[in-house]
């Protein structure tokens, strides 16, 4: 599993990376939106944990571009405090999940694993259709996956149990 953390708060994201590493999730780190897009061009990650408010390119713009160029990459938004509008927009752009800082590290690790699992399922389903010669369906599957409607609901129950 290849995971990219995108956040301009260097101390925060370094510690986050260490803690995820302890939980078996190796990560790479970049500190702004443009670096994230450059990284994606060179080595496509499975999951990106993306901050919204960053200097230069706003995280939502990164998500917008990724949804066009690399719709298969699963994005977990992790923001200091977005607005309701940000959350709606992230959902519209098919972000896998939307979390607010500070978040529980094990919860974040679960979301990352869930996002990776979802990506694998999408890829395998698309591959199955492609193998059967149904290329249009395979393409549509890759494009139209709606993670927040499926996995998001699963996690809601988990959240209720936590609170």
């Amino acid at each position, binding site marked *: 599993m290849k995971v990219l953390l995108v956040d301009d708060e260097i101390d*925060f994201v370094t*510690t*986050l990376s260490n*803690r995820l590493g*302890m939980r078996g999730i190796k990560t790479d780190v970049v500190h702004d939106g443009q670096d994230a897009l450059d990284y994606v061009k060179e080595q496509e990650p499975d999951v990106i944990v993306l901050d919204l408010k960053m200097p230069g390119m706003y995280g939502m713009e990164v998500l917008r571009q990724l949804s066009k160029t690399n719709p298969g990459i699963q994005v977990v938004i992790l923001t200091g405090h977005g607005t309701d509008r940000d959350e709606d927009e992230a959902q519209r752009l098919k972000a896998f999940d939307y979390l*607010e800082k*500070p978040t529980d590290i094990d919860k974040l690790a679960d979301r990352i694993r869930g996002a990776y699992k979802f990506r694998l399922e999408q890829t395998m389903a698309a591959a199955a259709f492609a193998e059967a010669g149904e290329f249009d369906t395979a393409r549509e599957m890759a494009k139209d996956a709606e993670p927040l409607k499926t996995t998001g609901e699963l996690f809601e129950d988990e959240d209720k149990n936590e609170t």
Partner: protein
Amino acid sequence: MGETQAGHGTGQASTVQGAGDVEASLGLRDAELQVLSRTLANVAHDIQNHLAAINESAGWMGDLLTLKNKQRFGWISRLFRLGKRHSDDIRPFSVALDAIQKEIGQGSILNKRIGGFAHRLEEAPSLFSGNKALEEIGDVLLREAAEKGIHLEMKLANGAPMIETDPPGFQLAVFCGVEQIMDGLERGDRLMLEAGEEEGRYQVQLTSSRPAESLGLPLRDPDGQDFSQTIVEELGGQIWKQSGDGNHITTLAFPLAVART
């Protein structure tokens, strides 16, 4: 927000001041509010980032302690199935870190509400959760009630539907309604704020432990009207008051969101 709020006090204000003057001063006030709200939202966001960084550092220390504990006593833990229990020399650190993270969690909730409130001041009429908007002003009201020795209780119904109106207007109407009632209450009095869906509307009901006559006059707008009433009516809602059995009930009712196609 500008246009919506500028509309609150205009109209017949020409008897006191020129209508243009009132509009100009309200326009300036709107601009000031927008600057304040953006500043507040940015500060709240930055504080949130600091809290998140402290939280991660505390968590990281906890992780390292757990790791150290596991390295030293892992085999004993496994043998006696002790799970994540810490050894005696590590436990005080673990307790302190838990306390830090708990405080960060509570500070973070308050800060998110301040940020949410600040963001709402920027919003145009929109679809939003009335409960969430009430939670944002709830902290301020609860604090004020505690200072006055009033028992304010908030009961927000689970699963209340969204409303579609001007968010700061909604918050201001409820805020002014509660303020007016609290002004007339004394130490030890009770005030209950209940909100949820009633008769196809989102209703906020304020029940105080004193009759209407002891509650004083409502906050007035420049036209001399009850401020809460003016706002609620401008937002397409209704406000009504009833007294009985030594209680007074003020109900603010707002239209629910129209289903979107």
